[in-house]
């Protein structure tokens, strides 16, 4: 097994090499440095195979404390370097064997990295999450006709009414989520939809109906926030997160 491995945070222009703050540390508290090839550079740090080797990673990713610490450390590095230059963040836990392999990667994917950087330059990501508002628990109306029905028929009628009301409420929620997405997308350059978060993790009991990311020009941020924050629906409740480094839009075109 190799003595050390190289953990990748992000890829950006070669000028990153001059601007990474001395003393910036990443996962496992390791100092952050930049590996350059031509006009692109990768933000990396040296890590221990005992923590970041393949087997160790498999195990560690299931350890919440490790996962949270590593995610925050990864994000802190990406966030810090992105303050000065556009960077394309890498997916968490991308590990190479050594610097030579990183340089070979930068050379091989040079065109694709340049395209990603062009796409996210001058833009930030905003998150929008929406939740179904709790439905008021209304006792179904006892219509005047109920009196004429036998108890069995009245029961069935009430059941049907309740079912129809619930289906209508569900449709209203879905329509509202679609409208919010459309409204947000209109002020954004691109959008990405994530699966709704599990209620155990979202911290809210209500069903999440939209978990989206939007790529927005820095000069359009105020307009985006204004549009999204003033949008209202009686059926869903929404919240905005960000600005984020454009994680959701750092994808390489297959070459």
């Amino acid at each position: 097994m190799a003595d050390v491995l190289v953990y990748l945070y992000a890829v950006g222009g070669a000028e990153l090499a001059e601007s990474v703050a001395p003393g910036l540390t990443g996962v496992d508290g390791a100092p952050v440095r930049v590996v350059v090839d031509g006009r692109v550079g990768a933000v990396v740090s040296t890590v221990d195979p005992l923590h970041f080797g393949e087997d160790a990673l498999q195990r560690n990713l299931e350890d919440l404390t490790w996962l949270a610490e590593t995610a925050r450390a990864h994000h802190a590095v990406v966030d810090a370097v992105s303050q000065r230059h556009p960077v394309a963040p890498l997916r968490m836990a991308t590990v190479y064997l050594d610097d030579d392999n990183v340089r070979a990667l930068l050379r091989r994917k040079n065109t694709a990295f340049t395209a990603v950087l062009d796409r996210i330059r001058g833009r930030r990501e905003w998150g929008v999450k929406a939740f179904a508002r709790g439905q008021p628990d209304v006792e179904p109306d006892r219509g005047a006709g109920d009196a004429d029905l036998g108890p069995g028929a009245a029961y069935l009628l009430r059941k049907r009414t309740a079912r129809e009301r619930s289906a209508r409420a569900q449709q209203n929620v879905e329509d509202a989520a679609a409208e919010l997405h459309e409204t947000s997308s209109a002020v954004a350059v691109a959008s990405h939809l994530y699966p709704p978060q599990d209620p155990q993790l979202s911290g809210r009991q209500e069903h999440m109906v939209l978990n989206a990311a939007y790529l927005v020009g820095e000069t359009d941020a105020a307009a985006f926030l204004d549009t999204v924050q003033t949008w209202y629906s009686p059926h869903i409740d929404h919240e905005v997160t960000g600005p984020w480094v454009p994680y959701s839009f750092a994808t390489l075109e297959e070459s």
Partner: protein
Amino acid sequence: MTLARNDDDLHLVDLLDRLLAGGVVLTGDVTISLAGVDLVQISLRALISSVSTLVDE
């Protein structure tokens, strides 16, 4: 049931959405390959079991 969550916890879930399902994905013979491993699934399992533990206490 509502869990008392602080901003850090909420932020972590949003962060993991992005770090585990977003970002540039590289594969190839020189990478420590977790190809085929669904990072989101195993990490969510870790999160959910951890949350359940907190609830049980």
